[in-house]
């Protein structure tokens, strides 16, 4: 027996909202969903009229919904934004090549220009080649570090004012939890901010318009709007640690849906004491990206790959560092011998 829509519109409800428990019909759900994203955008001051905004598009559910809803809101509320799609091709056969087809579909459906940048052209390595060299143990580290930098470079090349990413409330709660589990205080402080603008000049801000949107609602929105998205798991082994954090959150959410908002709120409210030393963010001496070290993580990983020392920059790196120093020393010796 059908449940009526909580907003008393007389129609049958199709969804129970995780955030509020309201039962809504399809039209009232669409309206509530879009209005909440709009108010997140307005209250967070995410955009300025005339901005060119790159939507980081992976072909997955979040970025597909983000691109769609930004287009709808840009027209409905006359934001005056110029929206473009920016995709990163990691070079993963059977995964990214398929999902890029979905992004191209988004480009045609939403009439937005699309820029695709590949790891191969940016770093000289595809993920397939990286995995062939390092195996499947730390490949998510490489992929994550490179993707972050690839988006920055793509955004710079496109000359956009900001990059909008599809991170949703569940993702954010998961990230807060992960940073607590890793004791990463610097990231814990940064990860909940809706605009990640670094103090370093020349980097392009990232914004998260879906920050307060539940994953369930994103998937339901995509389903009822018949948006096409790509939902195949990456062919390389997923990050098991993150997987556990995710499953744990989903279990909690089942018992108490507000846990997602509660964790985000905890992350936002945490204050690091003044006497806690946080890494100073400067620029990588090699590529100019934001970094708290002399060399940014991407450059260290890349150096490891190019030198055949793929452990460089991963975990406890003292061993790898010693190997690098030894290589350097050997090289010097060789130079001396040549004389």
């Amino acid at each position, binding site marked *: 027996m059908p449940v009526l829509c909580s907003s008393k519109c007389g129609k049958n409800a199709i969804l129970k909202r995780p955030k509020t428990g309201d039962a809504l019909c399809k039209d009232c759900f669409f309206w509530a969903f879009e209005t909440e994203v709009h108010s997140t955008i307005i209250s967070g001051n995410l955009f300025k009229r005339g901005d060119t905004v790159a939507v980081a598009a992976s072909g*997955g559910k979040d970025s597909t919904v983000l691109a769609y809803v930004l287009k709808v809101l840009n027209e409905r509320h006359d934001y005056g934004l110029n929206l473009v799609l920016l995709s990163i091709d990691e070079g993963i056969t059977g995964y990214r090549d398929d999902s890029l087809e979905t992004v191209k579909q988004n480009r045609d459906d939403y009439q937005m220009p699309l820029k695709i940048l590949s790891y191969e052209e940016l770093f000289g390595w595809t993920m397939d080649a990286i995995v062939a060299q390092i195996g499947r143990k730390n490949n998510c580290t490489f992929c994550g570090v490179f993707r972050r930098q690839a988006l920055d470079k793509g955004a710079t090349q496109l000359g956009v004012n900001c990059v909008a990413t599809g991170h949703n409330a569940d993702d954010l709660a998961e990230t807060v939890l992960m940073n607590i589990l890793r004791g990463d205080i610097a990231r814990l402080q940064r990860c909940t901010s809706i605009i990640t603008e670094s103090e370093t000049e020349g980097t392009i801000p990232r914004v998260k318009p879906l920050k307060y949107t539940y*994953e369930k609602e994103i*998937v339901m929105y995509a389903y009822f709007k018949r948006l096409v998205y790509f*939902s195949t798991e990456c062919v390389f082994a997923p990050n098991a640690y993150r997987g556990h954090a995710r*499953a744990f959150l989903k279990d909690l959410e089942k018992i108490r849906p507000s846990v997602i908002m509660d964790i985000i709120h905890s992350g936002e409210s945490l204050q690091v004491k003044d006497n806690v030393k946080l890494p100073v963010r400067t620029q990588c001496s090699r590529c100019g990206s934001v970094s708290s070290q002399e060399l940014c993580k991407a450059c260290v990983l890349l150096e490891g790959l190019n030198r055949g020392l793929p452990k460089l920059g991963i975990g406890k790196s003292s061993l790898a560092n010693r190997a690098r120093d030894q290589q350097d020393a050997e090289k010097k010796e060789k130079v001396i011998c040549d004389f």
Partner: protein
Amino acid sequence: MTDGLQVTLEFGGGAELLFGNIKKHEVTLPVDDTPWTIRSLLTWMKDNLLKERPELFIQGDTVRPGILVLVNDADWELLGELDYKIESKDTILFISTLHGG
């Protein structure tokens, strides 16, 4: 009239990968003394339909958290979840929210 309860089972968001990568299954549930519910359907699916890694779909007696269930395009959370009594010609859709981003 065929014996049994005819229902359509649909899969999306990656959940189809656990069911032979087929998005739509027309099935007939055998006649039973007690009415079919989602609870008993899940057991039946585990024994008859699930092709691989059942733990990615079923946890305890229910679906794994993160899998959405819709009955005739309505959220099962509005319909009593596991206790919903299945009717002939119902379409039950399972969507995974756990795949991709």
